[in-house]
């Protein structure tokens, strides 16, 4: 089969690889129909996540048709078209029982801090991902959901990560009706976080980024007030002035380690990789939120140390909430929101690319070219 092959920072290609096999009785093999490149993949692509080994296949946002199931799989059968949450979760452990499917204890040998994730380095378990024609899906009875007949597969594939991650970002903000919510980052997750903030009753939603076409998209899609931090002298002071000098009720970091906007952070975190990426979006979130407010973090940072203004967290009495999204927990609600037309995930898809062109798709997305918001790969044709 054909699969994406990581060769090092900023280098990927498509190669012939062995077909995946059933390695555990709860495994399934899925023929991929759609697979996204996620903003989180760019952290891998840029070489920022430790233990990203040459030769691995990325891809944690995908849906496809079940080809084969292991002897202990009960809920799926060959021919089912399923969406596959990015978390690999057993459904039985201490953490899965709490709904923390992103923190499963039975899916990641290499680390205890995070559960297994498809195609997301050996720090997240060392599983091959879905940017391939076929993929092995462990715990097939737990994560995958059969796509309803009425649902567009383009919506379904975005339910595997970006939609629940954005929604959970808003949920973790504890937004109350009338709250002012600031979202840092106008990528797909930031867009969905801003859109979801309205569902929790936000009174005002502000999106911060530095790419004009993404801000234009956020203005209409979310719909939100948008500001380009490159055009503002000090974004924290600006946001304070926007909120009667108090600060926002909720700030959401939907950026993570690939942030721009601060030379020192870029040098230490992005270029030298001596900390877990550039933490400037998190700095801005902590410093822009009001005293007693909530900072919600879904941006991906590597596992090494970070220079974070923890003193301000203490002095301002801020609540920090953060996690990988627990997709399975959120799916029923999000499916309903799509059915009711409250969210429209597929509107974010700007590029549909054959697997063979994956290097160009990664570069397009990474370099923010051609108005790219969200690229979708078609590993087995349209």
């Amino acid at each position, binding site marked *: 089969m054909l699969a994406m092959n990581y*060769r*090092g*920072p900023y*280098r990927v*290609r498509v190669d012939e690889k062995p077909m995946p096999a059933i*390695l*555990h*009785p709860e495994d399934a093999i899925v023929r991929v129909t759609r697979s996204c490149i996620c903003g989180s993949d760019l952290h891998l692509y840029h070489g920022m996540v*430790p*233990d990203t*080994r*040459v*030769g*691995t296949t990325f891809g944690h946002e995908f849906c496809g048709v079940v080809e084969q199931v292991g002897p*202990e799989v009960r809920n799926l059968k060959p021919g089912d078209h399923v969406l596959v949450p990015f978390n*690999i979760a*057993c459904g*039985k452990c*201490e953490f899965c*029982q*709490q709904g*923390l499917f992103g923190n499963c204890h*039975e899916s*990641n*040998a*290499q*680390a*205890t801090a995070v559960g297994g994730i498809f195609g997301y380095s*050996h720090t997240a378990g*060392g599983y091959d991902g879905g940017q391939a024609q076929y993929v092995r899906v462990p*715990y097939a009875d737990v994560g995958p959901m059969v796509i309803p007949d009425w649902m567009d597969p383009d919506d379904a594939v975005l339910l595997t990560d970006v939609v629940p991650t954005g929604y959970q970002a808003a*949920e973790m903000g504890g937004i109350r*009706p009338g709250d002012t919510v600031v979202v840092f980052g106008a990528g797909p997750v930031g867009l969905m976080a801003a859109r979801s903030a*309205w*569902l*929790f*009753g936000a009174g*005002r*939603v502000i999106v911060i980024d530095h790419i004009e076409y993404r801000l234009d998209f956020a203005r209409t899609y979310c*719909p939100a007030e948008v500001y380009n931090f490159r055009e503002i002298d000090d974004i924290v002071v600006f946001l304070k002035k926007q*909120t*009667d000098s108090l600060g926002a009720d909720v700030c959401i970091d939907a950026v993570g380690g690939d942030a721009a906007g601060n030379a020192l952070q870029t040098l230490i975190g992005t270029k030298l990789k001596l900390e877990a990426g550039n933490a400037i979006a998190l700095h801005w979130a902590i410093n822009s939120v009001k005293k007693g407010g909530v900072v919600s973090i879904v941006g991906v940072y*590597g*596992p*090494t*140390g970070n220079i974070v203004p923890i003193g301000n967290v203490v002095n301002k009495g801020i609540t920090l909430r953060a996690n990988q999204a*627990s997709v399975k927990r*959120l799916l029923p609600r999000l499916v309903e*929101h799509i059915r009711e*037309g*409250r969210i429209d995930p597929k509107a974010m898809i700007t590029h549909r690319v054959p697997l063979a062109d994956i*290097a160009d*798709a*990664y*570069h*397009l997305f*990474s*370099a923010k*070219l*051609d108005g790219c918001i969200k690229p979708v790969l078609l590993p087995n044709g349209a």
Partner: protein
Amino acid sequence: MSENLVDTSTIRGWGADANSDNDPTFPIRHREAQETRGLTWTRPTQQDADVEILQSVEHNRRPAVIGTSTPPSGISGMIRRYAFRRSESDWLHWLLLMGADRLNVVEGVIDDLGKGHVPNIPAEMGARAEWKHNKKGLVTKAAVLAGLTTATILVFRARRSKDEAKPGDADMLALSPPETFS
């Protein structure tokens, strides 16, 4: 407070999830309803591994399901094995892994060449997309790269010719070969 720029009455679904009784907050609030606590759940079947799996020292048993995509190999693999003697809270654990990742890239090129495949690095970096959507940027990068390469070569050549013309070299040459070699 500043005046809001978006009329919330026009937002489809505004406040749909605002009812706190309908709050899907996690982790679940009623942990007392959990069936098990600690490492006491009914474990899934243990997956066997036919490749080397590095395991965090913070695990007291191997998770039931494991990824087998890319076992450690070469010198980078040796570094990874050493890194996994340290816990996830140890900065060196992660720095060693990052170092192994960089070395692994060189190993990947050597592996390609060993298999008779010369990697097309510009294509792997998406040069076609850059050419199509950012010609100016590509030309600028190419010019900068060419300039740096030229400058490096010129500096190297200048240093070499300076070394060749350095006084005293002739005296040093006159000393060789040492008498003990004769």
